[in-house]
């Protein structure tokens, strides 16, 4: 028990006749970053809202930091931080005023709340702008302040609901850096995202969620391995020869991307496939710019898994 930060068993939540969560199971080990990956409407936000005591599940057992989110909501709230999809700040107030307010609401007392606000402003590189109203902040600064607000009491478990949605690449990098430094401090992080790259970059383990259930679970490498292994990519010089190449090459399940003059196919025997492709192209006199073996991207894993659940439904 002690090494589990989050336990979800058969969580259900229904809105009208739509199941937002349809018997979701999830276990997150203490001190790890867990990515929850899924398309829009998969139930990611509903899951985070239940875990952070904002919503009650219709059924199922949900425990965070060893406490039940319904029966012991207060105990859970003492131990969590939440970064929602939208910056949960008082926009008219300054950065420091916001942090002080949240510190007082954590019952730190006026002096400690002030000291903590200063610490966090410095840590998130906001010390110079603490007086400015949040409305004057850039998107990345706002997100950093929001993150600082969720860390007032060094929570045991931190929930990040699509933390970088709507941020430019720079803002995204800023938030990623902050999350990485937190993990070093031993916080358990549950992160939802639509960006596969984000899950790949930050998460120790990933749960792929679709239609309110976990459809796959594992490390990024395990997920990639589970989806048919390696692929070979062939980029031709002349897009007009793509058709001929598909007919000719010793491959099955070929995908063609004409814009990029690219053929892509799953392979089982890496070296045999590679030499077979090169030989066949040479014999037919088709010029290739690039032939490469690679692991599948998480994008492919994701499409594969979510397509499969749609077929099953």
């Amino acid at each position: 028990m002690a090494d589990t930060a989050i336990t979800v068993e058969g969580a259900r939540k229904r809105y009208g006749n739509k199941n937002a969560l349809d018997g979701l199971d999830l276990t997150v080990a203490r001190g790890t970053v867990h990515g929850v990956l899924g398309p829009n409407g998969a139930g990611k936000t509903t899951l985070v809202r239940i875990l952070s005591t904002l919503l009650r599940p219709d059924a199922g057992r949900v425990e965070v930091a060893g406490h039940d989110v319904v029966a012991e909501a207060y105990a859970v709230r003492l131990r969590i931080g939440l970064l929602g999809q939208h910056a949960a700040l008082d926009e008219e107030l300054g950065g420091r005023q916001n942090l002080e307010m949240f510190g007082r609401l954590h019952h730190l007392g006026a002096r400690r709340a002030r000291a903590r606000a200063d610490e966090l402003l410095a840590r998130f590189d906001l010390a110079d702008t603490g007086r400015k109203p949040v409305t004057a902040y850039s998107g990345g600064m706002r997100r950093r302040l929001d993150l600082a607000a969720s860390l007032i009491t060094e929570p045991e478990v931190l929930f990040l609901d699509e933390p970088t949605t709507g941020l430019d690449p720079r803002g995204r990098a800023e938030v990623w850096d902050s999350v990485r430094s937190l993990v070093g401090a031993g916080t358990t992080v549950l992160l939802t995202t639509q960006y596969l790259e984000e899950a790949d970059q930050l998460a120790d383990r990933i749960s792929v969620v679709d239609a309110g259930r976990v459809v796959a679970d594992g490390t990024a490498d395990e997920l990639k391995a589970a989806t048919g292994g390696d692929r070979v990519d062939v980029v031709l010089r002349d897009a007009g020869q793509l058709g001929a190449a598909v007919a000719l090459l010793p491959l099955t399940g070929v995908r063609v991307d004409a814009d990029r003059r690219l053929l892509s196919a799953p392979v089982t025997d890496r070296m045999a496939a590679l030499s077979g492709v090169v030989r066949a192209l040479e014999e037919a006199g088709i010029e290739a710019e690039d032939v490469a073996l690679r692991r599948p991207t998480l994008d492919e894993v994701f499409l594969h898994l979510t397509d499969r659940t749609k077929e099953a439904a």
Partner: protein
Amino acid sequence: MSTSTLTPMTHALSDSWTMTRRELARWGRQPVAVVVNLVFPVMLLLMFGYLVGGGRGLSGDYVDYLVPGMLALTMAFGLEGTMIAVTRDLDKGVVDRFRSLPMANGAVLVGRSAADMLQSVLGLVVMIGVGYALGWRAHGGPGAFLGAVGLLLLFRFAMLWIGIFLALVAGKPELVQAVQILVWPVGFLSNAFATPDSMPGWLGTVVEWNPMSQTATAVRDLFGGPGGEAGHVWAAVAWPLALLAVFFPLAVARFGRLSR
């Protein structure tokens, strides 16, 4: 239930005070918005006092009739401010953060009411000052004066909880605009500007039954001005209390339903 379900009661007061201070800090950040809020009813008062006023067939001076009506109207319009503030917080997600904190659940609503009541007191002070400058006088003595202010604030308190409830139902600031439009007929289909007997029969009846008219009539009586009716105070107490008895529990329940 386990002891860790609820926030300790000791936090309720300090959390409510923190939430009230948050609103006061917002005033400091946005003095212009505060001034605009205070000036709007003053403009209405000046408009009716100078453009429309006079020759209303009242026994006394129109300003003595108008000022108490405008004070009640200011309290009624406070409902809009409450609604805007509540929906803005809901929309920004800041209410979600509050609800995820180990703070007293009701403090969000208590802070809202305390801040809005303070703003209403400020609004009354300004309006009474302007009324005084226009020549309005309270003739009823200090006790009656304070009683009148109390009735106005009680009415505002009822409007406040209606505002919180409507905001929680509407949810989005865009929908508030639709509800705001309803405040105007309630405000103007009252005896704030004119006596009901000067209106067509059915309209006069509506106006007379309007809770805001009850407050205005009682306040006029306590100020010793025209249009007041002795013994009307009970109605000006009963109406807001009745509204509170309905909308306070509705608003609290609706706030609790955010977790559904």
